[in-house]
């Protein structure tokens, strides 16, 4: 790892349209080499934030830095480091996939034809790239969208709800690809979604936004907190078990504690050694999902 300087710094970012405040003093730093999720119910302001990051919308107050470049004062410098898909990847339908990529390649210096071919192969479109985009399926357009976003090997890849319209297979491929991009090539990936389940699969860290305000930033991997789950130990003597564990709550014959995998095994061994009989160990799936609903309010986490 070279530097841990954040790739993106949002400082008091505010967006007002008329009297409406869509984004309210957002402060967020995105560290390098991660898949960073941006989670929030529909209408929370994810797209608005992303539009400001890529210069499609003006920033009412505050500023966004991509590396050292301010989106406000050094737009070209900032954009050289970003590849993005904002909402749907709309392409020129009367052009072939290749011509579309050529179009975007011409707009950033230093992209060779070999690099275009490489990006095409990377997203698995080699066989169809010389066909017109109007013949593409949504999944293929999505791939072409990713290809145009990674053409110039950006430091930061921004994807707004990239899983919309993808089938489970497509989602899995995208997830694997993003993980690979972040963990092997060091690209920072900023990906928004209103679906927690997807974020949990894809992201290392997730920032939660609700009604234009940042609610929380959570680490989903690596930290002790992340791996811990509420786990129920069904035992013959719950009180004694609680004393042995040193924490937890009692629910009937069950002791409920927050532990990760290793701690589960350790506690089980200690209980057994302490003469307590363990009948069952159940991981309660009260996890991020519930926490997300608590934070954002019900109804925001799902569509339909």
């Amino acid at each position, binding site marked *: 790892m070279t530097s841990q300087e954040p790739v993106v710094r949002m400082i008091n970012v505010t967006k007002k*349209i008329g009297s409406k405040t869509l984004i309210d003093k957002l402060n967020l730093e995105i560290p390098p080499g991660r898949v960073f999720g941006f989670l929030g119910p529909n209408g929370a302001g994810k797209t608005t934030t992303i*539009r400001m990051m*890529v*210069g*499609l*919308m*003006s920033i009412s107050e505050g500023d966004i830095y991509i590396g050292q470049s301010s989106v406000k004062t050094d*737009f*070209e*410098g900032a*954009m*050289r480091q*970003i590849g*993005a*898909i*904002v*909402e*749907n*990847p*709309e*392409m*020129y*339908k*009367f*052009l072939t996939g290749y*011509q579309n990529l*050529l*179009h*975007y390649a*011409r*707009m*950033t*210096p230093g992209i060779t034809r070999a690099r275009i071919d490489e990006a095409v192969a990377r997203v698995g479109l080699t066989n169809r790239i010389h066909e017109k985009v109007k013949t593409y399926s949504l999944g293929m357009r999505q791939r072409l969208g990713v290809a*145009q976003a990674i053409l110039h090997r950006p430091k930061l890849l921004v994807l707004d709800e990239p899983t919309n319209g993808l089938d489970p297979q497509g989602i899995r491929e995208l997830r694997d690809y993003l993980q690979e991009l972040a963990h092997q090539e060091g690209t920072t990936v900023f990906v928004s979604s209103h679906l927690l389940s997807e974020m949990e699969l894809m992201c290392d860290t997730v920032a939660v936004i609700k009604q234009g305000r940042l609610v929380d930033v959570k680490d989903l991997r690596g930290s002790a907190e992340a791996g811990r789950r509420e786990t129920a130990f069904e035992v013959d003597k719950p009180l004694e078990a609680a004393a042995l564990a040193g924490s937890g709550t009692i629910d009937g014959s069950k002791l409920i504690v927050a532990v990760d995998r290793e701690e589960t095994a350790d506690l089980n061994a200690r209980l057994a050694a302490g003469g307590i009989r363990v009948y069952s160990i159940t991981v309660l799936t009260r996890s991020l999902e519930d926490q997300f609903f608590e934070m954002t309010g019900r109804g925001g986490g799902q569509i339909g």
Partner: protein
Amino acid sequence: MGNFLLLLQNENMKIYRRIRTWVMLGLIVAIPALFAVLVKVSVTDDPGAWDMFSNITIIYMLVSVFASVIFADIVASEFGWGTIKLLLIRPWKRSKILLSKLLAGILFSLISTILFLAVDFILSFALFHGRSVNEYPADYTAFSYAMEQMLYQYVDLLVICVIAFMLSTLFRSSGISIGLSIFILFARNIFQALLNPELYPWAKYVLFTNMDLSQYMMGGGQAGMTMGFSITMLAVYVLVFLAISWVVFMKRDVAA
């Protein structure tokens, strides 16, 4: 720094990779040809080549319509397709992207004008060998008269196209901007006829009154208007239209 010519190349690709463009260019050849052939078979005495040339020039209106469509569409279509988002997140200032579009439009207008002229010439001189009856003002030959008229018609086309370009950035809808541009293209003759500068002194400051520079070929204009005055007025209007286009395009939030 990126190479601006590549932006222009992109805009050209988006114009000439569309079938629509080739249909337009095809019609610019086919309609004068049809007209010339109809004349050829329906008259007994061939008109003179230069007379025929100036008759065919009436069809130049078609080039104005097509060029207006290209200009009216060139910004709005990106909004309509949603491609504006991917276009504007490149390391290019919006002002330069808009400039590349304006230049690509002008290039199309030049290409279609040259094509039209070539077709007009070839048809007139290949098919018609009669005696010319048209008379020209002093100092003009048939050739210089025709060329000067073409030049003024091209200026007229460019002014309309700049209006179309402005409408395209303002409305972001190809339908509205194309419709309005074509409406202005046809309605401006009515305005021109109604707003007589001899009757209304302020009318000489109206854009439409100044668009036909060929009005000075026969001598002085109405109400003391001169060629220099009209050129100045046109320049001022064009600059204002372009300024509006640039300010709007650069400031606008893209939420397409």
